């Protein structure tokens, strides 16, 4: 057993070119425009653990997910999986093995399953593609075993996606992701499209599977209560950057970054009936034109002149990682 973490991300960045077409740029004299969707993100995930990334829309959490499975090429930085650089390995013949070892579960089970395929084909495709079975009998048996491991019935192999409810569809996605016996699963908002009672079913299955198979998860969500339930470590993202990275307990018991505090305070809680509060003002700025210095400073109650000009780096602070001048200076 190796000691290095399963997934290691160093200074990862992804820049998208969102410029207007060439003719428009020439005629209307528009400049080239770039979005720094992910900007210098670093973290590690230990084997068998769950790292959750949270943040509001447009903070770059889904882009990180796609970079980790190789759906995007990083503009800068390295993602290494079990010691090997993902972007470099995918170009070589070993890339297939790597693809087998990492799989992804997407947000919307209505869009991520082919409506014209039977469950048999949907779940069996990765097995066939990676040559993991011999003959159709074995394929069918493997598919049935996979379906049963996520709580579906053997008879479901003959059905089409439209014959299932949202929660059942998400289980099919999970069964498909598990088909190649991956070690690492990237889950991009796997329960956001589901009702709470169904969400509970899916979260329980994911936890059971992690225990049985020793899976490692990257779990992307905007729901802090869900994150608290599944994660070991939590990273909070704001406008493409990690602002706080800590163990779950530290983060929820003692949030340090003003943005983390704001997020935690904003969640309506069923045990706080009739609570009145003053929510933090302002909105997430346009990522095309992010504020100078610390990108949270226009909304931050602790911002001072330094925050407006100098961008804080993610640094070790009392056992957690945080990017905030106010915390580092002891003003928080």
């Amino acid at each position, binding site marked *: 057993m190796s000691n290095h973490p399963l997934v290691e991300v160093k200074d990862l960045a992804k820049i998208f070119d969102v410029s207007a077409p060439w003719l428009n740029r020439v005629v209307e004299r528009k400049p080239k425009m770039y979005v720094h969707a992910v900007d210098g993100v670093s973290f590690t995930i230990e084997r068998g653990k769950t790292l959750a990334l949270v943040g*509001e*829309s447009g903070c770059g959490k889904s882009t990180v997910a796609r970079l980790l499975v190789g759906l995007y090429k990083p503009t800068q930085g390295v993602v290494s999986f079990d010691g090997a650089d993902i972007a470099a390995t995918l170009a070589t013949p070993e890339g297939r093995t790597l693809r087998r070892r990492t799989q992804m579960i997407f947000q919307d089970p209505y869009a991520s399953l082919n409506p014209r395929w039977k469950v048999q084909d949907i779940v069996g495709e990765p097995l066939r593609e990676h040559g993991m079975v011999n003959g159709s009998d074995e394929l069918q048996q493997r598919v049935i075993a996979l379906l049963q491991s996520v709580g579906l019935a053997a008879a479901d192999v003959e059905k089409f996606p439209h014959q299932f*409810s*949202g*929660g*059942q569809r998400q289980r099919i996605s999970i069964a498909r992701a598990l088909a190649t016996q991956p070690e690492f699963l990237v889950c991009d908002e796997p329960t956001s499209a589901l*009702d*709470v*009672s*169904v*969400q*509970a*079913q899916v*979260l*329980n299955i994911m*936890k059971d599977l992690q225990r049985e198979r020793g899976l490692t998860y990257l779990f992307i969500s*905007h*729901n*802090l*209560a*869900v994150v*608290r*339930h599944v994660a070991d470590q939590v990273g909070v993202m704001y406008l493409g950057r990690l602002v706080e990275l800590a163990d779950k307990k530290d983060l*929820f018991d003692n949030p340090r970054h003003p943005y983390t505090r*704001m*997020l*935690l*305070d*904003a*969640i*309506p*809680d*069923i*045990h*706080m*009936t*009739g*609570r*009145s*509060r*003053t*929510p*933090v*003002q302002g*909105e*997430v700025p346009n990522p095309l034109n992010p504020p100078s210095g610390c990108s949270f400073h226009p909304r931050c109650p602790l911002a001072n002149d330094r925050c407006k000009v100098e961008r804080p780096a993610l640094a070790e602070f009392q056992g957690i990682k945080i990017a905030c001048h106010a915390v580092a200076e002891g003003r928080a």
Partner: protein
Amino acid sequence: MTAPLLEVRNLRVEFPTRRGTLLALDDISFDIAPGEILGVVGESGAGKSLTGAAIIGLLDPPGRIASGEIRLEGKRIDNLGYEEMRRIRGRQIGAIFQDPLTSLNPLYTVGRQLVETITTHLPMSQSEARKRAIELLEQTGIPAAAQRVDQYPHQFSGGMRQRVVIALALAARPKLIVADEPTTALDVSIQAQIISLLKNLCKEQGAAVMLVTHDMGVIAETCDRVAVMYAGRVAEIGPVQDVIHKPAHPYTTGLMGSIPAMDEDRERLLQIDGSMPRLNSIPTGCAYNPRCPKVFDRCRVERPNLIQAGATRVACWLHAEGQENRA
């Protein structure tokens, strides 16, 4: 006890289809008092949005009210014609929908839409209405309202658009606001702003609110009373505190247990197995009986009506007379 502002009595909504009539809402009854915030909660397909649509008279055809009554300040509004209902909508009942982008006209400036609403319902001149529009935008917390009144919806962010929609709903000072998932499309930090805005404005104006949402947290923080819906029926209705802390219906208990909590650590969430029945295959007896952990013989054959159980009213045989030991 003041007279209720809105009374819904035995409301049934049907959708006739080629394969038979689907009963989407079945025997819904509740009241909303003046100034009260009633939460309506349930999972997708429970009929919560449909209840809101029936009250504001915007049921999509072929849906129709089959029987029952809706009364606003004692006057029936469920049988009014299109024109009469149009005058009530906006003037007496305001509506806020989930997606603020689709509830605003992209071709008109925000100000023009507000002025149109105000002059339709209130005796005001154009210039007075414009002044009132700017006032409304200021009240909903839009900075530089005097400039932004002349901008188009696409120039506003999601949270700001929802503020405009709230301003529109409140423009004619209605007595009742039907808000259908007003914060579902928004991020949590914006959701908190919008909820507290809605709560404060309605308090100032003395407007009652029917808040439809699937988020128990929002209900807990905002509402006075809550109705839990399941498969087109009210499963439980009562004061928020009681329903959340002492749920009487097994469905409410399951729903509360399946929400990951922020202040306790559990290895597994309580889960309700199965899913909500489809409208064409609602089980006989209590609609929840196939999923209910406390089901007994009577539940499978006879449908429970709302029964008083402590402070709440609940549709469950566990609370019928002689069954106290089971609950």
